[in-house]
């Protein structure tokens, strides 16, 4: 029994950490640069599908199945999602706050529809199964398998965290903050806002792609339904709860919000009669919404924020002289 609990704990944490990766990606975009990306699901989906296509065994009625190593899949996910973010960014980065939000939301919906409908590439509504799982050889022992995957995901998160902290403290990160604080003043000091914003957006997108790949390989199966706007909402809630602008906050928020999500799912399956459970699962979204409201009321900067409000003062029109 306690071993089962331990295995579940490892499974839960691994899932939470895959969300933490997405959250780190959002943090560099929003927390550090102020880019209002409401299309997180798109970049996660791109990463997941690219890695799945690269690493699954050959499949007759679908493109590819290139049977490559998982590491190659992850790398491909990072590159393609980063490139996609760069392209989306190059087209939309001049748009401010709310307009960028609308544009990225549109991108997310389009990507999800593409994934759903381009069956020869993505398997359509049925998704892609048999994605190789790291440490698949250990599958006979759920505990060892879960712990090994947890360790691997934790190493990815830790590596990303260290790299992102290094960047945040670097002169590059300083310019990013300066541009976020006052673009006109930063320009007067010779900083090129568009170049820096585009870089931050592409890095964030690449990280989200990595998250999608890591998650896809961990579960072993992906489908278009995994990449609906609710995913974007969850990741946003995680960052705001944990503390926007703070990489540790991003990780903590992912674990807490995913915990709330898992807990409410357990509550629904324990207390709601089976025929009502599909409907009652909306309760999970309500719980996150309530949690979000509570955080915004009680700790508007998140649990360990950067020391500034995540929302106030950020959504504003470009100030003119």
């Amino acid at each position, binding site marked *: 029994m306690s071993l089962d609990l331990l295995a579940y704990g490892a499974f839960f944490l691994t899932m939470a950490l895959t969300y933490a990766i997405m959250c780190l990606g959002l943090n560099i975009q929003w927390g550090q640069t102020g880019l209002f990306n409401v299309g997180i699901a798109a970049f996660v989906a791109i990463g997941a599908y690219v890695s799945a296509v690269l690493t699954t065994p050959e499949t007759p009625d679908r493109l590819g199945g290139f049977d490559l190593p998982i590491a190659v899949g992850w790398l491909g996910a990072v590159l393609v999602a980063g490139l996609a973010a760069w392209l989306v960014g190059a087209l939309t980065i001049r748009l401010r706050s709310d307009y960028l939000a609308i544009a990225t939301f549109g991108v997310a919906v389009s990507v999800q529809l593409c994934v759903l409908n381009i069956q020869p590439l993505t398997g359509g509504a049925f998704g892609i199964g048999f994605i190789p799982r790291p440490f698949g050889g250990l599958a006979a022992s759920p505990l060892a398998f879960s712990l090994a995957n947890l360790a691997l995901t934790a190493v990815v998160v830790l590596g990303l965290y260290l*790299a992102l902290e*290094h*960047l945040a403290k*670097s*002169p*590059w990160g*300083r*310019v990013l*903050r*300066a541009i976020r*604080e*006052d673009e*006109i*003043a*930063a*320009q*007067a*000091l*010779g*900083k*090129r*806002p568009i170049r820096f914003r585009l*870089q931050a957006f592409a*890095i964030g997108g690449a990280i989200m792609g990595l998250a999608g790949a890591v998650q896809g390989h961990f579960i072993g199966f992906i489908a278009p339904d995994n990449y609906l706007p609710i995913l974007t909402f969850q990741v946003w809630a995680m960052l705001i709860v944990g503390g926007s602008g703070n990489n540790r906050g991003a990780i903590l928020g992912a674990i807490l919000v995913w915990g709330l999500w898992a807990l409410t799912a357990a509550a629904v399956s324990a207390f709601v009669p089976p025929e009502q459970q599909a409907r009652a699962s909306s309760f999970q979204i309500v719980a996150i919404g309530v949690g979000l409201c509570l955080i915004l009321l009680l700790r508007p900067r998140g649990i360990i924020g*950067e*020391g*500034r409000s995540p929302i106030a003062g950020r959504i504003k029109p470009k100030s003119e*002289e």
Partner: protein
Amino acid sequence: MSLPLSDPHENRAVPQAAVVDARNLVKRFQGMTAVSGMSLKLGAGEMVGLIGPNGAGKTTLFNLIAGSLKPTSGEIWIGGRDVSQDSPERRIESGIGRTFQIPRPFLEMSVLDNVLAGAQGQDGERLFANFLRPGHVRQQEKAAKEKARALMDFVTLSGLESQPAKVLSGGQRKLLELARILMADPQAILLDEPAAGVNPALLETIMERVIMLNGQGTSILLIEHNMDMVSRLCSRVVAMALGKPLAEGTPAAVSANPAVIEAYLGGAA
């Protein structure tokens, strides 16, 4: 960097080659002409005052020279190069820096980070250099920090290094902007009303620092309403009204000019 005290009047005499040369600038905003045919030269090592009633077009002229606005017509030459169509972030490469009428510090960043943001040619501002050449970036950053600390000392903000800029008073913010732009080693600085809303003690500090900078050879173009300050600092004054030059000469001559008095008393404005 060394900032020796010297007699400001030493360097005032002869303007040599123009650092900033604005030629016949016109700026229209949808039917409103803010600057209509303004020319202005700022010589190397010169300190020129730009005065004029509110709405005369002084700040618009500044924004044209600093590049945050593009002229409707006319040319801006900086250091012998036509920069009229360059973006604002390229002006500093030409050697020109500016401060803002209402200071624009990076409020949530520390005073030290604010000053460091002014540094030019930092390889650490390139994304990959931070991973590929970390040692080099660290060294450059260390040198930049030393320079930033010297500048904070120069503008009397050294005790506030790790405070966020938002705690600074209005006058301190002006000093911070000065230190931040000095970090870029500009040849010429555009100062937009450095005295406005500053308490007398701090104003004295600001003036002293401006005099010292000019004494070191930095050209300065100064927008200011405080005629006492302009007379003390500048050898040459340009008066503007309705987007055009109105008078030019020594501070005494310009402030005695009937057209200038008329403009300030509301006749032309």
